[in-house]
Structures are given as C-alpha cells and as structure tokens.
C-alpha cells in the first residue's frame, strides 16, 4: 500500500493518458495507452514534481529566514506582500527576472551566462538523489550519498567560472577566495561522512536511514556532527563563514557584475544549498524520516508521515542556522582558512577514529552501545 513517488507519478500519467486515449480513434489510443508511453510520461511527471517541490521549498525557506531574522532583530520581517509576506519572494523573483540583464562588454559570453545557470542546475540535481521518505526517491542507488556529495562539490567550479568570466579584477579575487573557502571545507565534510558510512556500513542513504531506526547517529557521532555542521556553514557561505557578502563590502563580491535574472539564480542557489545542507544533516545524523520508539504509532502511521517528520527536522535544523546567523560576527578570510585546515581536519580524523572504534568494540563507555550493529 505504501505510497511512493513513483506510484503517484505512474497513477497520474495513467489517468492523463487514459483520458487522451479514450478520445482518440482505436489504433492511436492503443499507442497512447500502452505501457512504455505511460512510464515515459510518469518519469516526466516524477521530475516535474521533484523540481516543483524543491523550488517551492526554497522559496518558503527564504520567507522563513526573513521572518525569523526579523524576530531575532526585534522587527516584523516581510509582511505587506501577500498574507504575512508569503508572496514577497515571488515578487522579488518576478522583478529580478523582469530586469534587463546587463553583460559587461569585455565579459566572456559563454562563461558569463552559463556560470550561474550551471551553479543552480547542479544544486537542483541533488534533490533527485536524496530520498525524502521510504520510496520517495529515484530508486535505490547503491552510492547515492557519494553521488550527492560529488554533485554538491561542483559549486566552487561554477563560482570560479562566473567570477573569471565577468572580467573584473576584483570579482576574480572574490571568486578565488570563495572557491578556496569551499574547497578547504570539503575535506572535513567528507571525513565526517566517512565516519557515518563506517558506522552504517553502506553508501546508500536509504540504508543509512534504516540503520538509524531506533538509534540516531548524532549521539555516538556528535563530533562528526559538529564538523559536518561547520563544514556545511562554510559550503553554504553563511555567517560566520560569510565570504561573498563580506567581499561585496571589502573588494568586490564575485556576483557584483550580475544583475537581474542571473542575480536571482545566485540568490536562489544560496538557499537551495542551505536546504540541501539541512537535508544531508537530517539524513546522516538525525535519522531521516524515522522517529524514535517512544513516539506513539498513530503519529507515524498517517499517509505521508515520513515526509512530514523529515521536513519538520529540516526546518528545525535551518532555524539553528538562522539563529547562528543572527548572533555571530563574520570570521576573517585567513582565519577562516586556518580554522578549516588546522582545526577542522584533525577533528574530522578524530571522529573517523571514534567511528572505527565504535564499529569494532560495539559499545563505548560514554556513548553507550549500538544494538543494531549486533545483527
């Protein structure tokens, strides 16, 4: 009975094609309603649902941050456009798409236009890989975690492409600094992920989440969680590792040459990556869509319960990010890189050692035992 994204997609395409088939004469309706066209359209609808869900979620995330940040700053946040400011981000988006995009004369055309678009598209692809609930993903890829992190780390490349191609000396410096920061923080993230994979035994996000059915990983792997969160903050370029915003103040940010639609891509992608960061944290450490044992069965049995709890955790994690943004100042560029290499990488290695110890000894004095690992 379990409702999965694929079943929903095929049901929709079945309905559509059935309706079309009934209208057409016999040989044509046969061609329309046979199996492979239905599956083809189902795949299309599957992708459409995923894109729509991720885009809408990002826009709601932007609204959520502006309202929360407002309350942290003792003010109201966006409230006059639509109910309680919900349509504010749509207004921003439409206005930015409407403005005429200006390309500096000497800017390299291909890089200038393709940089931001590729930056956004690669972040969108990852939404297809990450499972949201049992069955709500694009099939069980054995290495889904590895694929997600690989595509996630394309971003510095495209930032560098757009910074270099806008042919502005300061944007180039800004772009190099952003790329350096992101690459510097990929190593600790991957090491933290190694710790999780050691404990859960597989690269497939599905099994990682199933492993955590009654024992979430953030208890034994707390150090890995801290390293992963710090790394994600740097990947998402949020305070305290807020380089492009600061660059706009110091030299020239790498996205200063972009106006209009391209700037909208950058703004949207910042929050897309924030959403992806929260997804990854919840999947790897907070047990994805599984709820601990003491939660009453009714709470996890209504349809789409998995998605509800998963998104609740994602928004809670994002609220912590906004809380950090409202209360901490910005770290300087060289301190940032020094902290990245000298502090984060050793901590990540330590967390991997701890995970290995956890797997062999099965129980640790302080952190308690992992019952599932017995089986």
């Amino acid at each position: 009975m379990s409702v999965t994204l694929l079943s929903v997609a095929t049901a929709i395409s079945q309905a559509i094609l059935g309706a079309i088939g009934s209208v057409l004469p016999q040989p044509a309706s046969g061609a329309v309603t046979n199996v492979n066209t239905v599956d083809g359209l189902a795949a299309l609808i599957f992708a459409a649902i995923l894109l729509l869900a991720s885009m809408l979620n990002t826009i709601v995330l932007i609204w959520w941050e502006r309202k929360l940040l407002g309350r942290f700053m003792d003010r109201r946040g966006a409230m006059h456009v639509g109910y309680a400011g919900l349509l504010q981000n749509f207004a921003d988006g439409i206005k930015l798409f409407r403005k005429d995009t200006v390309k500096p004369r000497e800017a390299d055309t291909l890089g200038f236009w393709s940089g931001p678009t590729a930056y956004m598209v690669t972040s969108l692809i990852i939404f297809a890989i990450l499972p949201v609930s049992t069955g709500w993903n694009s099939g069980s890829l054995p290495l889904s975690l590895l694929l997600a992190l690989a595509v996630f780390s394309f971003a510095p490349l495209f930032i560098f492409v757009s910074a270099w191609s806008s042919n502005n000396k300061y944007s180039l410096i800004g772009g190099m600094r952003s790329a350096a920061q992101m690459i510097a923080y990929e190593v600790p993230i991957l090491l933290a992920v190694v710790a999780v994979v050691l404990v859960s035994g597989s690269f497939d996000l599905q099994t990682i989440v199933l492993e955590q059915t009654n024992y979430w990983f953030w208890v034994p792997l707390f150090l890995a969680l801290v390293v992963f969160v710090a790394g994600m903050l740097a990947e998402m370029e949020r305070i305290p590792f807020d380089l492009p915003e600061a660059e706009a103040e110091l030299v020239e940010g790498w996205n200063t040459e972009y106006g209009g639609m391209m700037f909208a891509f950058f703004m949207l992608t910042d929050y897309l990556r924030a959403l992806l960061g929260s997804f990854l944290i919840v999947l790897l450490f907070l047990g994805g869509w599984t709820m601990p044992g003491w939660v009453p069965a009714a709470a996890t049995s209504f349809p789409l319960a998995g998605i509800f709890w998963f998104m609740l955790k994602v928004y809670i994690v994002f609220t912590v990010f906004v809380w950090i943004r409202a209360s901490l100042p910005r770290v300087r560029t060289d301190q940032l890189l020094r902290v990245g290499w000298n502090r984060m990488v050793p901590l990540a290695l330590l967390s991997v050692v701890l995970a290995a110890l956890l797997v062999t000894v099965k129980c640790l004095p302080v952190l308690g035992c992992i019952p599932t690992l017995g089986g």
Partner: protein
Amino acid sequence: MNASSVTTASGTAKAPGTELPVVTQPGVPFIEIETLRAKEFLPAAKEALSAMIAERGREDLTQPVFNWAGRNSLFPLHWGLACCAIEFAAAFGARWDAERFGIVPRSSPRQCDLMIVNGTVTWKVAHKLIALYEQMPEPKWVIAMGNCATGGGPFRTAYSVVPGVDKLVPVDLYIAGCPPRPEAMLDGILKLEELIRERKE
C-alpha cells in the same frame, strides 16, 4: 477551427461529413495526422494570439504582474550622503522596519532599481552619482530625499553644492523635510509605488 472527428473509446470513427482526411485506412500513424493538423493549426493560432496581444496591448497581460512585482520589491542603493542618510538608516531600524515592504538595500548598483539620494550632493560627487545611476539596469527610479537633494536646502548658496539633484539625474519623486522623518520617507516610497502602479510603458 471546425470540430474534429469524435471517436469513442471503442475507436470506431463516427465522423460527420468533414473535409479532414478521415482515418479509415489502417496503418496511418497518429503522428502523421497530428503533423497535418499542426501544419494547418499553428499559423492560425499564432496569428490569432498576436492579434489579441497587439489589440489588447501588452499591458493588460503582463504589465500588471510586473508592476506588482516591481512595486513590492524595491532594492534601494545602500549608501548615505549626509543627515538624511541617518534617517534612511533609522527607517531600517527596529521601529520603522522598511523591510516589511520588501525594501532591501543592496550595495552594488547592478542589483538595485531605486536610487534614494539622501543628502547634499556636491559637485565633487556629482559625476560619481551619475556613474552609479548609469550602472543601474532599467527599470529604475530616483527619489530626491530631503531638501538638499530637492533644491540644495540650507546650503544652496554654497559654492560646492549642486542646487538640486534633478540637475544631474531625472528624479521621479521629491520628499520634503530636513531631514524627513523615517515615516515621511516610507510615505514617499509608498507614493512611488502608486506611481509605478499606473506606469504604462
């Protein structure tokens, strides 16, 4: 476009006498039928749609939406010239939160569409102001906030002050006050939003 032949789910064609080629011979692929229809349908549809757009004018279709969007998310330039800049900053403080209206100051002119000239414009900064104005992409507006920007204010007799920023850039709205209160600035911006609402081009 006349009614195409109606086929029931069972696939038997009950077509009234139509001049369209009735699919009776077996083996005529569906795609062929559609291309024939498309060849005839598309030009007609295109011509009807463009006629409708031209006749009703683009405003009725997309302009209200763009006006609504442009009105509700004005990004002013993040700079301050003189005393009015302090009231401009106070308007973004906790008491008169200008971000409620979707007004977020951006520091690079490429991403702004509203330049609020908040303070005394001197001849030394005049060409930089014009350069900033040209960097801003269309559609853009200029608000002359305070008497110094409107007409030079208390310093209009000075040798180094531009008597009114409308001598440098086209100004859409003047806000009187020396300095205007944050509420007066917000009232000015709301009045500019009315002007944008009735904008035709």
